[in-house]
């Protein structure tokens, strides 16, 4: 099967309105007819993180304020990544009707899910930013690095999400595997604890976990108030680009087969 990247981009661009519609569909639908509406998207993770901050700062006997900032900084990239991976499995399966009826570039389905999640994540980031400020956390100018961190995180998640969305069409079991796999991965990702804190036999798993450097990347400006060092940035860039390219390659190879397998 031939792959023509230029045609692919031109075509995707010509369907940008469909992507826009699908993104707003997801954002609007979720909380239609609830009183607080879209605010739930912000309240939910904030409540969850606050509960975790209270419980685990007590458990680890650390200062609540410091721990809250530490936890929030790690939860932001983790929540986004985890939501992308668990939701992209359904990207094609949930749109079976549409895919079998009308031609659309298949990319619009996973892409619209990820863009909607990115919007959620950025908005909940601003809410957290506000909370950190209120509880007296110090915010430095280094947060200006975050858009770049988000960009790299997005392409990493996009790559993984594409792999999962395509693979799930062929192996439906993955829908159920991914939920529990992400829970396992959460404990192997230094969100609750410091990178160095987990020793013993599983320490190497934390080191090879590709999500780990992204946590460090967000934590540097938010928690430490410093820019991430250049080695970390290069490492994250490498992970982000390679996952994106592998995901895109697999997707383009399988794109035309999806309709026959739904």
């Amino acid at each position, binding site marked *: 099967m031939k792959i023509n990247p230029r045609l692919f981009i031109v075509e995707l661009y010509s369907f940008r309105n469909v992507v826009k519609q699908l993104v707003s569909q997801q954002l*609007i639908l979720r909380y239609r007819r609830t009183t607080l509406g879209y605010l739930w998207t912000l309240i939910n993770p904030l409540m969850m993180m606050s509960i975790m901050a209270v419980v685990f700062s007590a458990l680890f006997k650390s200062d609540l304020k410091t721990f809250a900032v530490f936890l929030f900084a790690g939860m932001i990239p983790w929540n986004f990544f985890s939501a992308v991976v668990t939701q992209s499995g359904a990207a094609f399966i949930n749109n079976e009707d549409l895919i079998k009826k009308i031609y659309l570039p298949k990319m619009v389905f996973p892409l619209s899910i990820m863009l909607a999640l990115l919007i959620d994540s950025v908005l909940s980031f601003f809410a957290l930013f506000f909370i950190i400020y209120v509880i007296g956390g110090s915010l430095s100018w280094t947060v200006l690095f975050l858009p770049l961190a988000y960009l790299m995180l997005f392409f990493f998640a996009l790559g993984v999400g594409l792999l999962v969305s395509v693979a799930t069409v062929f192996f*439906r079991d993955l829908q159920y595997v991914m939920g529990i796999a992400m829970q396992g991965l959460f404990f192997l990702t230094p969100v609750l604890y410091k990178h160095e804190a987990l020793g013993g036999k599983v320490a190497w798993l934390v080191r090879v976990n590709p999500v780990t450097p992204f946590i460090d990347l967000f934590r540097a400006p938010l928690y430490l108030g410093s820019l991430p060092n250049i080695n970390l940035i290069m490492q994250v860039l490498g992970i982000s680009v390679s996952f994106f390219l592998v995901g895109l390659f697999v997707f383009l190879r399988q794109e035309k087969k999806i309709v026959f397998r739904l």
Partner: protein
Amino acid sequence: MSSIRVAGLSIKFRIYHDSSPSLKSFFANLFDDKRQKKYSDFIAVDNITFEINAGERVGIVGHNGAGKSTLLKALCRVYESTDGLISVDGRIAPLLEIGAGFHHEFTGRENIHLNGTIIGYTPDQLRQIEPEIIEFSELAEFIDTPVKYYSTGMYMRLAFSVATAMHPDILILDEIFAGGDAAFMNKARTRMHEMIDKANIMILVSHQHELVTSLCNRVIWMDHGRIVADGRPEDIVPRYLAGEMNG
């Protein structure tokens, strides 16, 4: 001037005896040399070649499962061809499935924009044709109500009005749609005929043979994925009907 050229087109479906192979069986099969086939191939469209030029009104007839709808979907790019080439010149409007992408939680107006975008209208065009769509569907009163509260007739009226709001170069129909109450059906039928008149090329799959004879100036008869005959409706339709009687 629009045209459609199809050369050596084949579409193969792989029918899985299990709906989808599990991860377990995938890995089990990797190491199993004597694995049995878990699927069989079904050739829905088998090496078809034809050309349709501007002005032609083509009816496609054949038994259920002859490959008619699969061929239409291939022309609309829903199915990728296994073999062969399709080249289409002109804007295709598939009226295969009216209401594709409708969301029941959305209001009528939101669905006009969602469905309209999916079937290829630009935001500007949509803003322009929105009042006309609402008027034609006779749903002005309910246009800001979620469509899940619509009756089937209301739903069909809205879907039909969106799908037929613009005139495409190439019109592709899988059976002529007519739904809703008697008054709307008349209106819909009139609009359908208007669309057919204005289209540069029309392709219609139908089991109503009088309709095919009256609307088309060319008929393609398909059976088991192949073209049996291709010619004037007066010649082909009686032959097909006679074959149907005997076979």
